C-alpha cells in the first residue's frame, strides 16, 4: 500500500527553484490568456460549452449502447476491437499483438491512457523497445520522468534543461538552447525509429460511434507518422472518449484547441476510419476504473473530460506547484478529482491542492464542476461521505481511516473486482454502465440529434 502523495511538500520543493516556477506560471497564464482571446472570437462560446457538456452527459448515460455501436461500426470498417477491463489487460493485449508478430520495437504518439496503464515499463520489461514520438513526451522519456502536463508533458522544463538532456542522451550541443535546433536533434534521432518500426501506437481524442472512426489531434504530426508508417496500428481508447456522431464531433473540435492553447485547431486532426490497404488496425477499449467512476455520485462528471488542460493552465496552485508535484498520471484540478478514484489512499490528499477559487470550473469546455469542496471528503471515500477525511497539518489533525487501495466501492457498496477476462467484461459492461448512469442526476436520455 503506498502512502499518500504529499503534493504540498512536492510543491514546496518546486517553488524553491524560482526560475522554473516563475517560468511555468507565466507560460501557462499566457496560455490561459490565449484561451480567453480565442473564446472571445466565438460568440456562441458558452452555448458550445453547454452543448458539449450535454452531449457528454447523454453519451455517458447511454455509454454501453454507444460502445456497442462503435464496436460494430469499427469492425465493419476492418478494425479489430478489443475490450480491456483494466490496465493490465490493456497492456497484455498490446503485448500479445506485438509478440504474435515478433515485433520488438514500437513507436507511439502521446497518450495519457498509456501513461495511466504504465504500458511503457510493461513492454520494456518484456523486451520491447518503445520510442515516444511526441517531442515533449520523448523529452520526459529520456529524462525518465512522467509527463508534467497532459498536453505539454515537458512544459516545466526550460530549453536549457532540454539542451543538457539531449547532449547527454544524443551527444548534441549542450549550449545550444535554440528550440528549432533541439527539435531537429529530436527529429534526427527518432525519425529512423519511425521508419524502421513495424508497429505504431496512438491514443484517441474522440471515437465516433456512428462511423466507427477514431480522431486524433496533434500538433507535430507524429501520431500520423506513427500510425501510417508501420503496417500495424494499435489505438488505445478510454471508454469515456466515445461521442455519438460526426456532427457532435464538430462541437468538441471547436472547443478543444481553443480551450487548450488558444489556437483555433491543432495542426493535425486526423480521422482514422480503418486500416489502409494491407495494414492492420487494432482498437483497445479500456475501462480501467471508468465504469466504477460512472457510478460515483461525486466523481462521475470527471468522465466528461476531453483532456484539454485548460483547468491546469488557469489553476493558480498548479502553475506554482508544477505537474510532477501531484505524483499522478492526471494532475492539476482534473487530476485531483480523478486520481482518488484510481487509488484512494495514495491520492487521498490531492483534493486539498485547491483554494476552491472556481476558475477551473469556469474554463472547463465541458462544464465539469471541478472545484467543489465535497471532493475533499469524497476523495478519501470513493464518492461518499460516511466519515470525514482530515487533511494533515493545521487544526484538522491526521486523517483517521484509510480504504485499502486497489478496490473501490461503487455506489451500491459493491467492490469492483480487478480481475476477470475480456470475455466477462464484454458481457458485464453494458448493463453495468447503464444501471449506474440511469439513477444519476444530470444524466440525459434521448436522441442526440436533438441536441446538436
Amino acid at each position, binding site marked *: 500500500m503506498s502512502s499518500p502523495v504529499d*503534493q*504540498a511538500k512536492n*510543491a*514546496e520543493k518546486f*517553488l524553491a527553484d524560482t526560475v522554473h*516556477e516563475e517560468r511555468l*506560471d507565466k507560460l501557462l*497564464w499566457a496560455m490561459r490568456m490565449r484561451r*480567453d482571446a480565442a*473564446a*472571445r472570437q466565438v*460568440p456562441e*462560446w*458558452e452555448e458550445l460549452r453547454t452543448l458539449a457538456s450535454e452531449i457528454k452527459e447523454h453519451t455517458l448515460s447511454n455509454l454501453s449502447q454507444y460502445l456497442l455501436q462503435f464496436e460494430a461500426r469499427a469492425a465493419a470498417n476492418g478494425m479489430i476491437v478489443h475490450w480491456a477491463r483494466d490496465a493490465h489487460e490493456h497492456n497484455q493485449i498490446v503485448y500479445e499483438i506485438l509478440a504474435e508478430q515478433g515485433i520488438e520495437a514500437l513507436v507511439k504518439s502521446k497518450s495519457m491512457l498509456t501513461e495511466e496503464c504504465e504500458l511503457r515499463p510493461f513492454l520494456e520489461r518484456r523486451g520491447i523497445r518503445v520510442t515516444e514520438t511526441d517531442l515533449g513526451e520523448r523529452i520526459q522519456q529520456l529524462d525518465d520522468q512522467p509527463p508534467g502536463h497532459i498536453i505539454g508533458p515537458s512544459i516545466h522544463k526550460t530549453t536549457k534543461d532540454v539542451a543538457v538532456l539531449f547532449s547527454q542522451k544524443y551527444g548534441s550541443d549542450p549550449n545550444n538552447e535554440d528550440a528549432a535546433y533541439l527539435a531537429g536533434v529530436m527529429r534526427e534521432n527518432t525519425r529512423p525509429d519511425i521508419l524502421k518500426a513495424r508497429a505504431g501506437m496512438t491514443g484517441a481524442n474522440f471515437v465516433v460511434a456512428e462511423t466507427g472512426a477514431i480522431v486524433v489531434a496533434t500538433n507535430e504530426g507524429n501520431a500520423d507518422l506513427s500510425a501510417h508508417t508501420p503496417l500495424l496500428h494499435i489505438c488505445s481508447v478510454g471508454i469515456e472518449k466515445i461521442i455519438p456522431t460526426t456532427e457532435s464531433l464538430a462541437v468538441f473540435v471547436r472547443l478543444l484547441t481553443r480551450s487548450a492553447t488558444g489556437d483555433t485547431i491543432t495542426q493535425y486532426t486526423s480521422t482514422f476510419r480503418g486500416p489502409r490497404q494491407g495494414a492492420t488496425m487494432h482498437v483497445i477499449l479500456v475501462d480501467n476504473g471508468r465504469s466504477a467512476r460512472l457510478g460515483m455520485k461525486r466523481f462521475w462528471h470527471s468522465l466528461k473530460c476531453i483532456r484539454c488542460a485548460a483547468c491546469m493552465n*488557469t489553476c*493558480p*496552485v498548479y502553475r*506554482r*506547484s508544477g505537474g510532477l508535484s501531484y505524483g499522478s498520471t492526471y494532475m492539476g484540478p482534473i487530476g485531483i478529482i480523478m486520481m482518488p478514484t484510481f487509488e484512494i489512499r495514495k491520492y487521498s490528499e490531492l*483534493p*486539498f*491542492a*485547491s*483554494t*476552491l*477559487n*472556481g*476558475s477551473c*470550473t*469556469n*474554463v472547463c469546455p465541458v462544464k465539469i464542476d471541478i472545484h467543489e*469542496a*465535497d471532493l*475533499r*471528503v469524497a*476523495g*478519501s471515500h470513493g464518492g461518499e*461521505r460516511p*466519515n*470525514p*477525511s*482530515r*487533511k*494533515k*497539518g*493545521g*487544526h*484538522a489533525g491526521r486523517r483517521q481511516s484509510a480504504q485499502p487501495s486497489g478496490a473501490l466501492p461503487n455506489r451500491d457498496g459493491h467492490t469492483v473486482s480487478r480481475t476477470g477476462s475480456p470475455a466477462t467484461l464484454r458481457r458485464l459492461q453494458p448493463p453495468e454502465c447503464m444501471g449506474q448512469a440511469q439513477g444519476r442526476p444530470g444524466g440525459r436520455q434521448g436522441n442526440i440529434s436533438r441536441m446538436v
Partner: protein
Amino acid sequence: MLERPQTSGSAQTLPGLQGEMTMQVALMVPCYIDMFYPHVGIATLELLERLGVDVIYPKEQTCCGQPMANSGCYEEARATEEHCARVFGSFDCVVTPSGSCTHHIRNKFTAGADSPEKQNLVRNTYDLVEFLHDVLKIREFPWATFEHKVALHTSCSAIRGLNMASMSERVHDSVFSKPKALLSRVPGVEFVEFERVDECCGFGGTFAATEEAVSARMGYDKLAFMQKALPDCIVSSDMSCLMHLQGCARRQKQDIPFYHLAEILNGVSL
C-alpha cells in the same frame, strides 16, 4: 430555538424591500473578524445604522462552519452549522461583511440537519455588498470621502460563488463589479488597474496552513501585481483575503494599509 433578541430603537423602513415593510437585520460578524479585526465588525454596524437599518447582534453567534466544511470535515461542521441556523434562522435578513461566509451559507450549507431555521437562513443571508447594492440600493455615502488610490480585490467566493462581479473566465459576460460600484460612489476614490485582477490571492481558508508554500507564493504574486500599479491602499469586501495579503506584506516589510470595504463606506480616513 433561541429567543429573538429585543431590538433597540425603532425599526426603519427599508426602501429596497417588498412594499413598505419594516424589518430587522441581524449582523453576523465572521469569527475571524471578531477575533482579529473587530473594528471591521464595528464599521459594518456603524455603517448599517447610519443607513437607518435596525441592526441586531445576536451574542450567541460563533462561526458559519465554513473552515471545517471546506476541509471536508462535515461531521465537525455539523454542530456549528446547526448552531448558526438556530441563532440566525428566525431573522428576515442576515447581513455579514464576508463573501466567503455568505457563499458557504447560501451554497454549501449542507453539514447540518435540515430545518425551517436553516432554510430561512440560507434564503436570507446577504453579503454586506449585496445588501447595500441589491437590497437597499444605496448609492450615496455622504459622510465618506477617501482621496486615495485603491487596489480593489474581490474574493473568489464573491466573484464565482456569489456573482458579485463578472469573472475573467466568462469572456462574453458584461463586465461589472458591485463592490466597485459602491466604492466608486465615495468621493475621491481612484481605482488602480492591476494584472490578473481576479486570480485567487492564495488564502483559501485552511489551504493557507496546509499548502503553506503555494499559498504564500500566490499572496506574494498578488501583492506584486497590485504594488506595480502604485496604490495607496488595498481594499476588499473579504477580510480573509486581506488577512492573508497583509501577512505576506508584513513578511516582505511592505508598508501598505489594508481596509475592508465597510470601513471606507463608513468614512474611515487613511
